């Protein structure tokens, strides 16, 4: 039932619009619309009930274990939400003077400083609004660096074949050619292939560490040395920082520029797709190019937004105002609650959860992708054997897991592992949940042995069964119509 299906002409949420009917007649007729947009005509209760019921059709962290690999679906503290929504924070206009924003600016400044410390970078800017935008800022800074040195023959960005799709897409947006580097049999970057790829055309390399196959890149210092020797710079994709937060720092590994996904590591909500926040950090080399604005501190603990006048070499602005400040305040509240010891615990216990879950699934006979390696905060189960012997693939397991009350892990990523489930349990899930997930996986395999078609038909207990994606793309239906 769409909100449009309960709409009736003449009905309204009367309390929510100005009572008086003002006239827009003073607007010249040629600018005015001739017929009103068809928005729903519903009462306030109908709206609240409709969207409350819709929400109940979602899985979420608050309702389900959500071990989605590379997404860090951990508990989003309610306290952080409430504090970011204090009325003074919500009510402040972005162009209000800095004198009337010292509170919010102080929080942002401390967040900048502390993120720099925990990542080992020299300076952090917070205005980028998502991981992919952080990547765009980072690669644009790499470009600005080379251009400032007159080093304009560098046309390629190296990206591992297992990287998130945003990495190659970003390199293209920044005007670079993408060259893929294969992953070695042990899960680390293939060094021989790296050497072949490096050259005077190399602008930089984008790496995630721990990598998207769920292991720590052990030769990272050597990679950094070789890339730097070739004149390239190193970009750190912070998608997996949760695994090493407070333990090991990208700056110490040799990275020149990083982005963080605050909606992953710093526990701000994913909101059904966003908003996130993608802080970027740099070392001295790239400092002049950081995006604007960022918060500066002046004498007497006064704070202000830095602008073009302060940072003339900046790559520029990536949003109308200062970024997703409400999200940054949630990250700040979370960081304050964790403190330095709490950050290290994030790494400790997310890694403990992943290794425990990996060992238990292995003991139950599932195949993990890199059994000789330690898991980081996530690991890959390959269901190649089950797909071949039982005819039940990773997607079938994923859909049946939904029936059993578990959100599916990330499926079919990274592509180089067949029938992959990328599983990230996070530090906030209890042992009981992890054990329950193992039981569910074992149960599904047993069901597959007995009646594979039954598993292939899953899910059965959700609001809908498997959807016809082909039809969705072929007979495009992207909006309600009066008589559809």
């Amino acid at each position, binding site marked *: 039932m769409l909100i449009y299906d309960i709409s009736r002409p003449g009905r309204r949420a009367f309390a929510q619009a100005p009572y008086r009917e003002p006239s827009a007649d003073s607007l010249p007729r040629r600018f005015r619309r001739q017929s009103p947009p068809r928005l729903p005509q519903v009462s306030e209760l109908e709206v609240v009930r409709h969207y409350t019921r819709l929400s109940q059709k979602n899985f979420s962290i608050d309702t389900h274990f959500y071990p989605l690999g590379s997404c860090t679906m951990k508990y989003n503290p309610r306290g952080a939400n409430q504090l970011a929504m204090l009325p003074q924070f919500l009510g402040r206009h972005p162009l*209000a003077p800095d004198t009337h924003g010292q509170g919010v600016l102080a929080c942002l400044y401390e967040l900048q400083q502390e993120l720099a410390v925990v990542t080992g970078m020299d300076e952090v800017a917070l205005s980028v609004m998502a991981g992919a935008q952080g990547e765009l800022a980072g690669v644009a800074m790499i470009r600005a660096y080379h251009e400032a040195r007159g080093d304009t023959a560098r046309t390629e960005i190296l990206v591992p074949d297992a990287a998130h799709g945003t990495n190659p897409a970003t390199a293209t947006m920044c005007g670079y050619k993408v060259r893929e580097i294969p992953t070695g049999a042990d899960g680390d970057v293939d060094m021989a292939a790296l050497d072949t790829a490096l050259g005077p055309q190399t602008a930089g390399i984008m790496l995630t560490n721990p990598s998207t196959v769920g292991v720590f890149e052990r030769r990272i210092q050597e990679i950094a040395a070789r890339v730097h020797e070739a004149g390239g710079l190193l970009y750190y994709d912070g998608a997996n920082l949760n695994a090493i937060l407070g333990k090991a720092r990208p700056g110490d590994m040799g990275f020149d520029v990083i982005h963080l996904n605050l909606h992953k590591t710093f526990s701000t909500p994913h909101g059904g797709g966003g908003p996130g926040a993608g802080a970027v950090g740099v070392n001295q080399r790239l400092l002049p190019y950081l995006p604007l604005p960022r918060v500066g501190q002046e004498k007497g603990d006064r704070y202000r937004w830095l602008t073009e006048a302060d940072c003339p070499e900046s790559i520029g602005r*990536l949003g109308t105002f200062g970024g997703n400040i409400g999200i940054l305040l949630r990250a700040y509240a979370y960081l304050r609650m964790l403190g330095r010891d709490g950050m290290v615990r994030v790494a400790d216990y997310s890694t403990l959860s992943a290794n425990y879950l990996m060992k238990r699934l292995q003991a139950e006979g599932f195949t993990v992708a890199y059994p000789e390696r330690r898991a980081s905060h996530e690991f890959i189960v390959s269901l190649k054997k089950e797909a071949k012997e039982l005819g039940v693939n990773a997607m079938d397991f994923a859909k049946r897991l939904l029936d059993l009350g578990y959100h599916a892990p990330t499926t079919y990523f990274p592509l180089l592992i067949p029938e992959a489930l990328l599983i990230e349990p996070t530090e906030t899930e209890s042992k009981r949940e992890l054990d329950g997930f193992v039981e569910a996986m074992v149960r599904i395999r047993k069901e597959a042995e007995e009646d594979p078609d039954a598993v292939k038909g899953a899910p059965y207990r959700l609001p809908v069964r498997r959807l016809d994606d082909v039809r969705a793309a072929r007979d495009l239906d992207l909006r309600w119509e009066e008589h559809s």
Partner: protein
Amino acid sequence: MPFVPHTPEEIQEMLDTIGVERLDELFDEIPSALLGAQLDAIPEGMGEMEVAQLMRARAAQDVPLTCFAGAGAYEHHIPAAVWEVTTRGEFYSAYTPYQAEASQGTLQQIYEFQTMISELTGLYAANASLYDGATALAEAVLMAVRANRKVKSKRVLIPRSVHPRYRQVVETVVTAQGIELIDAPLDDTVGRVDAEALGRFEDQPFAAVVIPQPNFFGALEEVDRLTDWAHGLGALAIGVCNPVALAVLSPPGEWGSAGVDIVCGEGQPLGIPLASGGPYFGYMATRKEHVRQLPGRVVGRTVDLDGRTGFTLTLQAREQHIRRSKATSNICTNQGLMATAATIYMALLGSEGLARVAAMCHERTRELVQRLTAIDGVERLYDGPFFHEVPLRLPRPAAEVLKQLAAHGVLGGYDLGRDYAELGSVLLVCATEMRTSAEIDHYAALLQEILHGDAAVARSSG
């Protein structure tokens, strides 16, 4: 341990299962030189109560101002139900709806959002959101260059009446791809694109022409004429619109004889708090023929195995997780929860409510302008039609006046001289439906006093 649930016994059991004695051993693949980061500069953790005390004290420093500023962010009434429902955990803490069967709530809400944006703009296909108005325009420019198959140009005409920050962001995002942005001149008497001066661009190919409505100065552009002119050159027309204004202004899909090709803008006026500038969301819609060039997520309606209606992400072959370096954009995380709030806002207001809000904004701004221009030396910069923002010339430097107003609790507008030095001392003022006549009177009295040192004069001359 905040947010870690294990008891010591459970930790021991987990270590035993793994076959290690200590947690440290789990990190033995990390080179030892990289371990042991110095974190002394980060304070120790606190409980929720202490963090609340700290952040409440910080919030108390941010003394609220009565807001007469717009310039890209507008203070509207937000029904309580919007955020009560939006922050339900099932919306708030869900991921991107890739597992469609477990995400029907978010997916259907996006489909309804797409419908509402389509209705407001008059274009068929909306996406699920972009970061904000400025980045939405940057994406629209990239999309137009891809989608325009008639004109093989990478030049885009972007008038000076477009929000200056939008123009800066577009430049940051698109120039690495060899796209050239060309200014269109302003008509200084009415504060909009100079239609007469456009003639000199007619021998140059453009991939797209950007048309703001209302423009940064609050003025209404001659959108029909500009759209037809763009199409006459073989360029695509990109509308940039305030969505609340579209409740009363003609929809971009109907501008000129054919309507624009892409429309985008800032979604913040639709139920999103000011919050110092974000999170907001960008919206975008296009014609059916260009839908495969849209950036970002799109939801389609389909059926399940049993023939029941359901919703799913569709046209994913455009996106980075499938197409990688050939994707239409690198966007992944968007501003989903803001679009959820906007959907609920639009459902609560309806077209009648939204039109009342828009008309009330217009009326309030007329009242504000009337009161302020009654003050000696304060006059309108332009005399054309406007929506809910107006530039006013001041007899003294705007920055200085704003400072004094702020000291008295009023955010008096935006100093246009920051972006348009040639205009001199000009303040861009705005009044939404939230402003009362008493607040408008108070602003006028303060301005009178600041400019002329006498509140009484303002009353007699008004």
